């Protein structure tokens, strides 16, 4: 290095040399000690623990294999199993051990039915697995196939039939739109999941609860350290860490109620959503038509999938969550409450219905459903008889923006926050929305029809049911929940899961809310009610509101083409109801597509559903 003659005046080179040498010796001593320590560790691994890691034959090897956790089961709120795991067999190939793949597959095809789709999806998967990973070729083998393979196993190096648990949905299409289904882990899934935890997993939740609760249902993979021979057969297990099974889920769905709603709809497309207003849990969530989820578990064939796509009524479409419908008169209770709470009317305010309503200066009539009109009505009787004029006039006084602001508190026009993916937001119109979305001004006539839930208003069945629950709850709004309880592995008792409170709507005058509910009670129990038919012989008291939605467009996708609309010009029938009136324990929204009037088509479905819930309800324990 450079000479620093001046600065070195105080330095003592001799002393520094000695100091360095002592430090170098100390350093080298540490080096040797550490290296010996490291060697000691290698000694431990290679001599002391050698047995644990060694194999009995040169050609064998030790490998770590994932132990796949059992997927959590799903129960309904009364403990019925609605998603289970059944023992099954699948055919797997380890690519690395196969000399020539195509001849092997051809050979296998003589014993086990293999079509092009099996081969294609196998070839697609190959890219995402390592050469020594087993890749499933065909799931859910029949007993004959398993037996035929077992006899001929020696001929197929690299192929094996292995047992696994296959997901099964005992209630089939009844719960598809709630549960969703699991399917083969594909490339997009692999990119998304924790690869370590999914190393041995071959299925994943695709939609519905199965997708939304994937993390809980899947569990945590374990592993085992095994010795395998050349062909991959396990000779002995050296070490094992068990998997932690997935969490069992209890849904708030009651299959009996779900079934009653499903059957009630009959062959008509439609939707029923029932919510327990006391805790925001969803009792039934029906969307019809549906399809069998079990077909998707083993990998659905293109043909079968096309058949579902071609089924009229779009079975894949989840109406309960994202079907957009005009609420029609079912919106009237909410508009009425808005009028009361905004002090535009009181419970005694009377309006004269002459059959037609006019905006000052315009000649276009807005009609009542009764041509000669209903005469003088108050809010309660306006609800009872579904008097349009009352709400036309109220809407005009309120204006669209105040209506929007008040009704949005009930969750109209926004996502409910339900714990399943894919819900729609509906639409609650306002001046601002129209300007932004259509770049058009708001017209007074649009306010008038908005007062009876027509025009731009769009709701989903789930939104409607939840809004009703809020109304009868005195403004307490929950995020509706399908998950009712969970039972993690190793825990004795199920843990109750509660729906989170989304908001509490400020109550200005409790009597206002009561008056609206009173009006809804008269719909079913009043002399002139529009749905009196459904109360006959009921062991509990029901309140409700009928509605009819004009068919002009089903949803944003434009569900039906023009030719279809010509055949289905009938209106959608809507009905919302709650019961028992005294202490409501269920709020329900029913939509029957092209059912005609709410009272005739939708109300009986509601009755059947309410019966199933209120006639059998005994207790609320969860017994998975």
């Amino acid at each position, binding site marked *: 290095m450079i000479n620093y003659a001046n600065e070195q005046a105080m330095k003592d080179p001799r002393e520094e040399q000695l100091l360095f040498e002592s430090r170098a010796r100390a*350093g080298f001593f540490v080096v040797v000690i550490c290296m010996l320590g490291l060697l000691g560790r290698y000694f431990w691994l*290679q001599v002391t623990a050698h047995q644990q890691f*060694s194999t009995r034959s040169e050609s064998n090897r030790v490998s770590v294999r994932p132990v796949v956790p059992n997927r959590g089961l799903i129960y309904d709120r009364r403990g019925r199993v609605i998603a289970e795991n059944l023992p099954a067999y699948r055919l797997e190939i380890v690519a690395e051990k196969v000399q020539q793949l195509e001849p092997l597959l051809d050979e296998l095809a003589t014993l086990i039915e293999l079509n092009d789709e099996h081969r294609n999806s196998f070839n697609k998967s190959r890219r995402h697995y390592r050469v020594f990973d087993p890749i499933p070729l065909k799931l859910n083998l029949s007993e004959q196939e398993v037996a035929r393979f077992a006899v001929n196993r020696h001929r197929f190096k690299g192929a094996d039939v292995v047992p696994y648990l296959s997901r099964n949905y005992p209630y089939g299409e009844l719960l598809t739109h709630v549960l969703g289904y699991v399917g083969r882990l594909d490339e997009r899934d692999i990119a998304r999941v924790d690869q370590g935890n999914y190393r041995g997993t071959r299925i994943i939740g695709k939609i519905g609860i199965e997708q939304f609760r994937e993390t809980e249902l899947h569990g945590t993979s374990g592993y085992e350290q095994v010795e395998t021979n050349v062909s991959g057969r396990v000779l002995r297990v050296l070490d094992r860490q068990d998997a932690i099974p997935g969490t069992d889920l209890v849904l708030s769905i009651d299959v009996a109620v779900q079934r009653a709603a499903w059957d009630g709809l009959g062959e008509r497309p439609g939707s029923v959503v029932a919510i327990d207003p006391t805790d925001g849990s969803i009792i039934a969530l029906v969307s019809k038509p549906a399809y069998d989820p079990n077909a998707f578990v083993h990998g659905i064939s293109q043909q079968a999938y096309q058949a579902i796509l071609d089924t009229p009524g779009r079975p894949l479409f989840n109406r309960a969550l994202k079907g957009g419908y005009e609420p029609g008169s079912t919106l009237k209770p909410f508009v009425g409450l808005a009028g009361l709470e905004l002090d535009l009317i009181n419970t005694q305010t009377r309006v004269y219905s002459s059959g037609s309503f006019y905006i000052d200066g315009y000649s276009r009539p807005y009609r009542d459903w009764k041509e000669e009109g209903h005469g003088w009505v108050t809010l309660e009787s306006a609800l009872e008889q579904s008097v349009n004029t009352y709400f036309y006039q109220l809407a005009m006084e309120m204006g669209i923006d105040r209506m929007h602001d008040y009704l949005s508190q009930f969750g109209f026009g926004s996502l409910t926050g339900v714990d399943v993916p894919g819900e729609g937001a509906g639409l609650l119109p306002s001046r601002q929305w129209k300007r932004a979305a259509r770049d058009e001004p708001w017209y007074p006539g649009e306010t008038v029809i908005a007062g009876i839930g027509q025009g731009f208003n769009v709701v989903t069945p789930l939104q409607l049911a939840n809004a009703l629950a809020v109304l009868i709850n005195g403004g307490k709004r929950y995020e509706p929940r399908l998950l009712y309880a969970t039972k993690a592995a190793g825990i004795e008792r199920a843990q109750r899961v509660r729906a989170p409170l989304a908001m509490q709507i400020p109550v200005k005058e409790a009597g206002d809310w009561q008056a609206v509910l009173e009006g809804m009670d008269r719909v079913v129990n009043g002399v002139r009610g529009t749905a009196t038919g459904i109360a006959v012989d009921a062991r509990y008291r029901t309140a409700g509101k009928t509605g009819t939605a004009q068919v002009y467009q089903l949803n944003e996708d434009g569900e039906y083409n023009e030719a279809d609309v010509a055949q289905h010009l009938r209106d959608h029938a809507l009905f919302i109801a709650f019961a028992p009136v005294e202490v409501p324990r269920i709020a329900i929204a029913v939509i029957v597509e092209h059912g005609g009037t709410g009272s005739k088509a939708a109300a009986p479905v509601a009755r059947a559903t309410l019966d199933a819930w209120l006639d059998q309800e005994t207790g609320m324990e969860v017994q998975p």
Partner: protein
Amino acid sequence: MKIRVPPWLGTPRLDPVLLGLLLLVMGFGLVVMYSASGQDMATVNRQAIRLGVGLLVMLVISQVPPHILSIWTPWIYVFGVVLLLATWVFGVGRGAQRWLDLGIIRFQPSEVMKLAVPMMIAWYLHPRVLPPALKSVFVSLAILMVPSVLVARQPDLGTALLVAASGGFTLFLAGLRWRTLVVFAGTLMAAIPLVWPFLKEYQRDRLRIFLNPEVDPLGDGWNIIQSKIAVGSGGVTGKGWLNGTQSHLEFIPEHHTDFVLAVISEEFGLIGVALLLMVYVLLIGRGLFIASLVRDTGSRLLVGSLSLTLFVYVLVNGAMVAGILPVVGVPLPLISYGGTSAVTLLAGFGMMMSIYGHRKFIS
């Protein structure tokens, strides 16, 4: 006719012992590489070319007289820090910003710091009274902390560790008082929990998984478990070259980079590991011996700390493969696949050779 040769060209100034040991390690490394790469000659060739480049760099540097290196030292250091800052801003790399893309070549400025930090501290301590006064100690610590922290936040814990260690060794060899050393070591230990919040999530995962690999045996713990199986299955004598079953067939991840020692352990057994560690110890010992021959304080410190840094490489990599240290990116010196670290190491040895070769002119 007499050809005039510039004095710095002259005869090569290579220490035959050091050179012999280096060639031994590199030759062995290429043999292992053939097996680890699944008998892929192309990989071996690529690695051989890198090592060749490294040797060339070593040869060139060994001809540069130490006083020239000394003049350059502050500039190399400042340049290195600037590059690190540039990496922060313009760096490329997946997940971690380590690389600087210069169009033709991409390189890791952090590698430069492995040499620049001990050079800078040696340069700084050279004119001072040793053992260093407290002020000198703090300045030296600042010199090593700035790049270490910059590298650590890239994030590249392995390299940061090596940079910090190389600087720390310089201080240690300069005669840092034991008491001060203990205080610093204690402070460092106490600081570990404070560092935790600044680590990236994947770094924390690595530490967690290291502490308990069974937490995630199929994810990150996979590396550790597979590596242990490969090492353990090797036994005393190993399965023989090309006969490793665990470390082939992709069982070991990154098997020809950071985990190449697992391949060596499986194929050459405990005996192979012991011999390899011995060669490394001899290299370190030879380096320290050369250092003690040098009269010039700065050069002596530099040679000594470069030798001891080699020890950190071997220890950390060996411990990582054996599952007693977390997976940090520290390669097995001169054997792991990859050019950057080999060139840096050989450049360091070039400086050692230069100081060794020029020592008679210093006195």
